């Protein structure tokens, strides 16, 4: 699907590239994005808010004598001015031989990341879907829907540089989320669930029911005594910790001394049950794209294979520094910044056992169904983890009671090495970027309670 001509045919963008070179830049790169969004919030079967938007922006990166300068604007017409400002900004940067300019490697094989039916389905149908999901949350009289949200995005990306890279693609997806409260005898508990797909039929209509069940399962939750115990991580919880691990698998973090994985390529960093891949070619993965944010074709990269660290994620700069090849992992949070390194769809490969089977191996421990404070309590540099948690206490292989106000703590590398088993219940989710994991059984974490 070709990108709307508003980006690829935009004269101001071409002029910007030429203008940067005319102003004395050795090389230049234009990166432009157009995003169209729709968001619906539903409460008690009524639309609470409806937001739609059409916005764009451009970032110009310039190389002069090994120095990089940058400037951005929301107005594409101002791209030529951005180019001149970027050229001036470059004078203040430190020259660095690893500031390489990405070169064209030929056409990237296309990925079908946009379904026209995403946007052609009517607004009324989307509202109906949300109502159906919210209704599902009322399956039990103790449950009440708290927040239901549908959102969709269509993103057009265009980039061109002075070394022959010219790439454009369109991607689109919809996300559905459900937050439900369960209340009984003054006890209030909360559950949530999320689903994402390229079009409406891929979304899980049972979401409200799932979120309600998660909240109901926690009613009557009490604290637990402090101590060490086995821990099972529900897939969505494992996904959040996986995202923290992902930060440490960036070659940029490793090269700058900010990774708990140091220089461990070739060594065991996790138990043999663990294999982790980054797959940017997965059509249903929200982190996929045919090229990365520098225009290099993307790929599937095996990061950890049966516990052994095989590769880090690279962009062209980190690859140049390491004498390695880019893994197509250049990523910008938006057109407002220069590319760093980021996973695309980061996945722990599933194993053979269902969650119940894994639970059966636990004599006494905690199945963690929700964590909080990940953004502050999980340190991607030191690897220290300390989080709020809720879940279900397991005794003799079975759930005996719900648990709340627990803190779980550990060290990332020890936790990875202590993963005894990996379940078969793989879930791909838009939580923490785009991550996927099954249930994980960890030998031991410290649990704090009463």
């Amino acid at each position, binding site marked *: 699907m070709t990108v709307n001509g508003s980006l690829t045919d935009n004269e101001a963008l071409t002029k910007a590239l030429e203008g940067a070179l005319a102003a004395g830049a050795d090389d230049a790169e234009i990166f432009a994005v157009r995003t169209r969004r729709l968001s619906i919030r539903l409460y008690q079967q009524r639309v609470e808010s409806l937001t739609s938007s059409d916005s764009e922006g451009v970032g110009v990166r310039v190389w002069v004598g090994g120095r990089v300068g940058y400037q951005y604007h929301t*107005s594409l017409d101002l791209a030529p001015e*951005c180019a001149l400002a970027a050229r001036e900004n470059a004078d203040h940067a430190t020259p660095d031989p690893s500031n390489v300019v990405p070169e064209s490697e030929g056409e990237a094989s296309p990925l079908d990341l946009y379904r026209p039916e995403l946007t052609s389905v009517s607004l009324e149908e989307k509202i109906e879907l949300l109502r159906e999901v919210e209704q599902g949350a009322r399956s039990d009289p103790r449950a009440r829907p708290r927040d239901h949200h549908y959102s969709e995005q269509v993103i057009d990306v265009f980039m061109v540089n002075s070394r022959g890279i010219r790439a454009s693609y369109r991607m689109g997806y919809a996300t559905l989320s459900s937050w439900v409260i369960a209340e009984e005898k003054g006890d209030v508990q909360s559950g949530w669930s999320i689903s994402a797909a390229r079009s409406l039929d891929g979304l899980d209509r049972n979401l409200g029911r799932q979120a309600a069940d998660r909240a109901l399962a926690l009613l009557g939750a009490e604290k637990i005594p402090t101590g060490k115990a086995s821990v099972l991580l529900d897939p969505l919880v494992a996904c959040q910790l996986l995202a923290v691990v992902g930060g440490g698998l960036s070659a940029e973090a490793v090269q700058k001394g900010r990774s708990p994985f140091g220089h461990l390529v070739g060594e065991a960093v996790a138990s043999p049950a663990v294999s982790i891949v980054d797959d940017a070619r997965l059509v249903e993965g929200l982190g996929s794209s045919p090229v990365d944010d520098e225009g290099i074709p993307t790929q599937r990269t095996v990061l950890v294979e049966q516990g052994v660290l095989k590769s880090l994620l690279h962009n062209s700069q980190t690859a140049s520094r390491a004498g390695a090849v880019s893994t197509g992992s250049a990523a910008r949070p938006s057109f407002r910044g220069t590319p760093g390194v980021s996973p695309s769809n980061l996945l722990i490969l599933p194993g053979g056992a269902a969650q119940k089977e894994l639970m059966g191996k636990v004599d006494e421990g905690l199945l963690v169904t929700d964590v909080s404070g990940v953004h502050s*309590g999980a340190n991607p540099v*030191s690897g220290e983890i300390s989080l709020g948690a809720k879940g279900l206490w397991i005794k003799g292989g079975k759930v005996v009671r719900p648990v709340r106000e627990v803190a779980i*703590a550990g060290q990332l590398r020890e936790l990875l090495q202590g993963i005894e088993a990996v379940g078969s219940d793989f879930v791909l989710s838009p939580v923490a970027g785009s991550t996927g994991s099954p249930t994980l059984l960890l030998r031991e974490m410290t649990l704090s309670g009463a």
Partner: protein
Amino acid sequence: MTSATVESSTLERILARALAAGGSFAEVYLEQSERASVRLDDGKIEAAGGGGEVGLGLRVLSGDVSAYAYSTHLEEASLLEMADQAGRALKGAPSGSTATLSVLSAPKRHSVPEEEPAARIGTADKVDIVWRCDRSARACGREVRQVSVGYFDLLRRISVANSSGWRSEEERHYIRLLVHVVAARGDVLQTALEAPAGQAGFEFFRSNPPESVAETAAKRALTMLDAELAPTGPMPVVLAPGSGGVLFHEACGHGLEADIVSKGSVYKGKLGETVGSPAVTLIDDPTISGLWGSYYWDDEGTPARRSVLIEDGVLRSYLCDRLSGEKVGLPSTGNGRREDYRHLPIPRMSNIFLAPGKYSPEEVVASVDSGLFARKLGGGEVNPETGDFVFTVSEGYLIRKGRLGAPVRGATLVGSGPTVLRSARLVADDLGFDPGTCGKEGQGVPVTCGQPTMSIAEMTVGGTRVEG
């Protein structure tokens, strides 16, 4: 860069068009921003850069349903199309009476003058600031492994015009320095972040000398290398001034936002009731000059004002914007805020702080026999329906027999908002503020959390050292 404006007559046409579809209220929010930034990492200036944004958001209310459309295109034709779309989106919503547009007055303007406007400071001087940080941090010890420094200044021009005739333009000048240090000993890495921020020009660096900021970060990272494992389980906690305010931000700040109150918060229906110990007086004040979370009008054009939320333990007020205020039967308290033109306004905190008490910090620490002293907090998170919250201690010390002892590694503290409010014990007289970004419903706004040194009877500490 160019100055973006939308003509009065255009504004009136857009607002009228938005109301014509049956809306009871319409508002145009126009924002222009310009940012300059410098990033240093691994001993190099990686990028000096910046950029600008211009965007417009049109909000139409019909009863309590909001339609919102935003764009980076300001041509009248595309704005009128946006107004039509917003109207179509409201079709089927119960309409209030069709409102008529009041004539727009000339805009009221406000801007706090900077002594040394950042926009007039050359990039070379900004680059110098970050180099000074790098040198000072590295000079603190051999074990400083890595330093990354970010500087940015941001000018935001916010214009609000609505169908009641209100029109305002406010200019805000933000400035921030972020120093992140990694210290290493063998395989063990520890990190620290110091990120002072305010609304000011370059004079900001007189009260926040770059060398001090960098040294504070470096010394914290180095101290953490010597730290023991954090203790585990329930214990009394003393919080140092400033970032300790994150506790209240999470324990009750969000729970007092009127949109959350109307849907279900642990503080719902409790105005006039005792919700905390008598030591707790909690205030939200966007009018404090120069603080990161301050403003003159909120992002709906309501004048900012100081709100006493809890007074000597009794709940006095919620934080309201127009819409959520209506839902709880209260006027806006001037807390309607948005990250930028891409978002609807919702009730947010600004500068939220615990009022100072009468004790000295030493007395507060001495009152605890065995517990944890949290000198610096990282962030936290709360579920306002259940009241359960967490926050992370990034620099902590054991308290043994009323005295500060060994440093301990970071840990997250877990608690229940209402329980913690009731467990607040002694409050000292040394009020301090710490800036941060508060995230809610996918939008982040600048805030500060403030408090003096204070003690909490008991919280659960999530360390890794299990006694006995």
